[in-house]
């Protein structure tokens, strides 16, 4: 089997985006569904190709090597980006009918073409972030992602919620960008470099007098990236934006943005780990953030009754567990694997739940938990999918979510981060409550309207695949782990 160069994947996605744009522009069909199918099929093909891609390393000192790395982690996050986008596009097929209600379309379903195109560019940005090893590249690709999200979040112009979410994301996102940039400035000012590897080399030999300023820069970057990954105390945008944004975009935001944020964060931490003193402080800060994030995400989720908002808080909560893993960095051998594995699992279960939310929203016209009442009877498939997603998010064994948490706890215990372990234990318990609230709605409560919900074949298949993967990776994580070697 050929193994494509990882660069090729980026180029293919870029090409796909451009072709879709051209098709959109020059095709005068009013109904743009074929755009969706094209993007799904091609992106699916690229995703499958990506599974066969092998890491490559570029010659030291080459132009590419300064900005771009295609190691196994980069590849892993590229796959996450591709997979997430693919699933989001699949969701979007179902979501189109809702979408068109909230855009000023000349004809029904008009103007939905870009909704399939822009995520492809977002995906491209995410893939670049996965490979970026230079602050310039990080900044540019991150902004590509962010700007495309600004557009996508506010896509439903007739929906007050979508616009409000867009504005909030815009202002706070720009604010965080400001902090990130300012942080990069300081790091650059001290080291004179933007490439992470070179920064790392310099930090290793830098006199300790510079540490204060370096930490300042690092702190600013932590603020900027913490915003992206929804870490407390920079997480307040998450629930509002998640609730307001079009559901598939929420999904992409929740998975893609977080995953990309974490790979960048890990690369930065890796660079800073050259200095043990700085690393110690950093780990402390990460631990503090992890505790806040865990508490905020899990506890504030308890009284929620909107599904997307709930998942927003859940997204914060999972960022907390991921931060726990980062705070248990140790010698750095484990944390990236743990985080990456966790994120892959998070992708599966979050996408599964959003997939169901989209269909339920279509059928019931809302995405409150109350809309899920009696889903167990109205559509066993959807309910089962949601059940598995919730269980996995809550961390029930045999699901991939559990294995992720297991790894996180393993790292934390191995690094003797007792405060994190204790907070983790309590918050996992709290987590059970709000995830099972959804299960309760689906199975305990009776539906006000008990008609069956029809589910398209594509959605059914996707649910099936995701459920299967959740269980398979829940007991047999070896393939995923092999990708991270």
């Amino acid at each position: 089997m050929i193994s494509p160069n990882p660069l090729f994947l980026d180029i293919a996605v870029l090409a796909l985006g451009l072709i879709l744009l051209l098709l959109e522009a020059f095709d005068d069909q009013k109904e743009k569904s074929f755009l969706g199918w094209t993007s799904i099929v091609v992106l699916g093909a690229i995703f499958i190709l990506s599974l066969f891609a092998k890491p490559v390393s570029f010659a030291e000192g080459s132009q590419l090597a300064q900005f771009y790395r295609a190691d196994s982690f980069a590849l892993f996050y590229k796959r996450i980006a591709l997979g997430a986008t693919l699933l989001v596009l699949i969701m979007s097929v179902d979501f189109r009918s809702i979408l068109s209600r909230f855009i000023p379309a000349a004809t029904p379903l008009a103007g939905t073409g870009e909704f399939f195109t822009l995520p492809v560019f977002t995906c491209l940005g995410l893939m670049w972030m996965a490979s970026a090893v230079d602050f310039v590249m990080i900044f540019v690709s991150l902004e590509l992602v962010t700007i495309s999200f600004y557009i996508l979040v506010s896509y439903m112009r007739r929906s007050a919620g979508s616009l409000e979410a867009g504005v909030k994301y815009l202002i706070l996102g720009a604010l965080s960008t400001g902090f990130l940039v300012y942080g990069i400035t300081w790091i650059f000012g001290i080291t004179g470099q933007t490439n992470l590897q070179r920064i790392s080399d310099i930090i290793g030999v830098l006199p300790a007098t510079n540490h204060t300023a370096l930490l300042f820069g690092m702190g600013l970057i932590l603020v900027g990236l913490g915003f992206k990954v929804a870490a407390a105390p920079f997480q307040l945008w998450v629930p509002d934006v998640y609730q307001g944004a079009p559901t598939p975009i929420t999904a992409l935001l929740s998975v893609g943005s977080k995953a990309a944020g974490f790979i960048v964060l890990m690369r930065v931490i890796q660079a800073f780990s050259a200095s043990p003193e700085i690393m110690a402080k950093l780990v402390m800060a990460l631990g503090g953030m992890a505790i806040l994030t865990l508490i905020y995400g899990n506890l504030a989720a308890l009284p929620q009754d909107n599904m997307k908002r709930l998942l927003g808080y859940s997204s914060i909560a999972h960022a907390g567990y991921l931060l726990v893993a980062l705070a248990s960095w140790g010698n750095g051998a484990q944390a990236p694997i743990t985080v990456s594995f966790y994120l892959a699992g998070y992708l599966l279960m979050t996408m599964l739940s959003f997939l169901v939310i989209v269909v339920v929203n279509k059928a019931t016209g809302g995405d409150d938990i109350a809309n899920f009442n009696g889903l167990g009877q109205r559509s066993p498939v959807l309910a089962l999918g949601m059940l598995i997603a919730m269980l996995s998010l809550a961390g029930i064994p045999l699901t991939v979510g559990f294995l992720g948490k297991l790894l996180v706890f393993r790292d934390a215990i191995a690094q003797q981060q007792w405060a994190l372990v204790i907070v983790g234990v309590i918050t996992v318990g709290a987590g059970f409550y709000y995830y099972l609230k959804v299960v309760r709605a689906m199975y305990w409560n009776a539906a006000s309207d008990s008609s069956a919900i029809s589910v398209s074949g594509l959605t059914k298949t996707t649910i099936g695949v995701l459920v299967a993967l959740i269980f398979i990776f829940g007991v047999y994580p070896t393939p995923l782990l092999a990708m991270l070697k």
Partner: protein
Amino acid sequence: MSPIFFWLFSALMLGFGACVILNRNPVASALSLVVSFLGLAALFVGLDAYFIGVIQVLVYAGAVMVLFLFIIMLLDLRKERRRKIKPLVVLGGGAVVIAFVAQLGFILRNFPAGARTLEPLTGPFDDTKNIGFTLFSNYNLPFQAVGVLVLVATIGVVILSKRELK
């Protein structure tokens, strides 16, 4: 650049920056921002970053601020309605900003490299050429990426602004 000019332009920049915040009329704010950015451009020039200074004037003072003004006019925004000023908000926000500045001061005091003074340039200094050369040789990849970014932004603006989507 002599310190006098530095402080002059800095004061200009910061003063008008403050005006941006203090003016209740958005138009006045926008115009203050233009002046502030002009001051900034002057500081760039003082740092031998001529190209950046020019870009700053062109892009910000020229394009971006025009866009701002245009939108303000388009939306016919008046003075901000005077709403009840919440003392708690002012107090809290002020405290945060002051704390941030204080921390910055602390950092600067503990930043030995910060005491460095300007050394004269000794290399073959041709600012625009150097920048262009670096950009198109070393920074090719980010440059391409920014291209995509601008494309996306363009599409986005179109989607978000068209009255009716076809």
